[in-house]
């Protein structure tokens, strides 16, 4: 399972390195979102600093939809999904591999977004460790849930509109918990300890990784 996961993750990341779709299209959209948020809240920096953690995670969620769509589209053409099924790879490994590739892309995206939050909104980072841990665990959960729904909506004519409807409400706990940890890490006024929220992010990631490992096989059988 793990070996298959590494193979699939390597394949997806290699495709991304060669095509640069996420890097050249999704990352600029994420940065654009930060600018649009600033138009909505600015130009005074105080409301932007207060809203920065939430805006960061909203941007991650929406661009996550794009990353997941891209990941599912990799096997969309030329019978790619059938090829993957015929390859004899463990479906759980395929799921973990695809989720890992999405997670790596999202982490790159989050690094850019974090820099943007600090640069554009003037946020000060108090505890960078918490930020990194929250981003990694939150991203693992988002990538797992997203890959699951990406596979579910793959091949459907309505996939572009169906995926956000399915994925975003499920991802809401990540938005809530991620924002709380970030508020705490950025030292926002009134923010309590981020620890319980961090635990929630871990639970979310573990639950969705487990569900994906179990469900991905039967899901791939759907024509």
């Amino acid at each position, binding site marked *: 399972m793990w070996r298959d996961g590494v193979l699939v993750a390597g394949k997806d990341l290699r495709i991304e390195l060669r095509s640069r779709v996420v890097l050249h299209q999704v990352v600029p959209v994420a940065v654009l979102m930060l600018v649009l948020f600033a138009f909505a809240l600015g130009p005074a920096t105080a409301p932007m600093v207060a809203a920065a953690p939430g805006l960061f995670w909203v941007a991650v969620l929406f661009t996550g939809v794009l990353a997941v769509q891209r990941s599912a589209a990799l096997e969309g053409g030329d019978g790619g999904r059938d090829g993957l099924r015929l390859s004899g790879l463990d479906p759980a490994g395929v799921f973990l591999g695809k989720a890992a590739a999405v997670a790596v892309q999202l982490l790159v995206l989050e690094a850019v977004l974090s820099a943007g939050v600090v640069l554009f909104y003037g946020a000060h980072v108090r505890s960078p460790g918490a930020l990194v841990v929250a981003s990694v665990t939150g991203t693992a959960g988002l990538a797992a*849930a997203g890959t*699951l*729904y990406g596979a*579910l909506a793959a091949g*459907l*004519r*309505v996939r572009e509109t*169906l995926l956000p*409807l*399915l994925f975003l*409400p*499920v991802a*809401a*706990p990540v938005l*809530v*918990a991620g924002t*709380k940890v970030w508020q705490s890490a950025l030292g926002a006024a*009134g*923010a*309590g300890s981020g620890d*319980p*929220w961090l635990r*929630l992010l871990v*639970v*979310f990631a573990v*639950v*969705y990784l487990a*569900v994906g490992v179990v*469900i991905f096989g*039967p*899901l791939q*059988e*759907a*024509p």
Partner: protein
Amino acid sequence: MASPPPAWSRRRAVIVHVLGAASVLAVAITVWLGLWVTPPDQHLRDEVRLVYVHPPIAWVALYLAFGLGALSSVLWLWTRTRSAAWDRLAAASMEVGTVFTALTLVTGSIWGRATWGVWWAWDARLTSTALLLVLQLGYLAVRRVPSDRDARARRSAVVALVAAVDVPIVHFSVDWWTTLHQGGTVTNPNLSPTIHGSMAWTLLLGFVAFTLLFAWLLVVRYRLVTLAEWREDTELAEALHERWAEGGPVAERRAAVPTATTATAAPGALAGARPAGPPAGS
């Protein structure tokens, strides 16, 4: 010819009608008791009357309908118990459940307006119920995607299962979100007033009435799902029969060529099964 639509047996039809009549009657009695017989509350005055409607609807929406939908989805996914009946039950339960979830939000909102003074508060229950409604709408959206029946059942079962897994996480996160870091959460201390006598009986009847109503709607919706599937199976054949019965170029050509070649054997065989009447142009 197409097979006739699957029919209820006479006994089953009677049971369903009795169930329907009982649920409507029970709801009507609940309304009568709730509005006219029970006394107003000491604190909440007449607004307390929503207690006979809102909690029973919420019970049906959040536990009965969603639970049944998730359970039947799991039973469909599990290969040992897989049966088309579980898929239909999940579809019926989720759809009726969505209506009840929306009603929960509406009645809750009206109650919130009456007691808190606002239509909407970012209260844990309200927020997680709203997210549940979106999850259910997602389920219904997946069901409406035209595709192979087996694939649709698989997709929707997975969506129901993942939503069911998500509901506790959503509930906890939203609960913490509204209580952990935010002093003075909007809570209503009068939500559980000491009720007794006619109020308790009316509330109990409310639970029975809306559970009966759910059961009736579920049975009827299940039948509609069955009929819709039957329709899907037969409509192409029926459309072909109708087209041939109308006559037109295809029928004329068929009449002009008495011996069917191998390539046209299949349509020719179908044409033989069409309703009585000479083909046009013959």
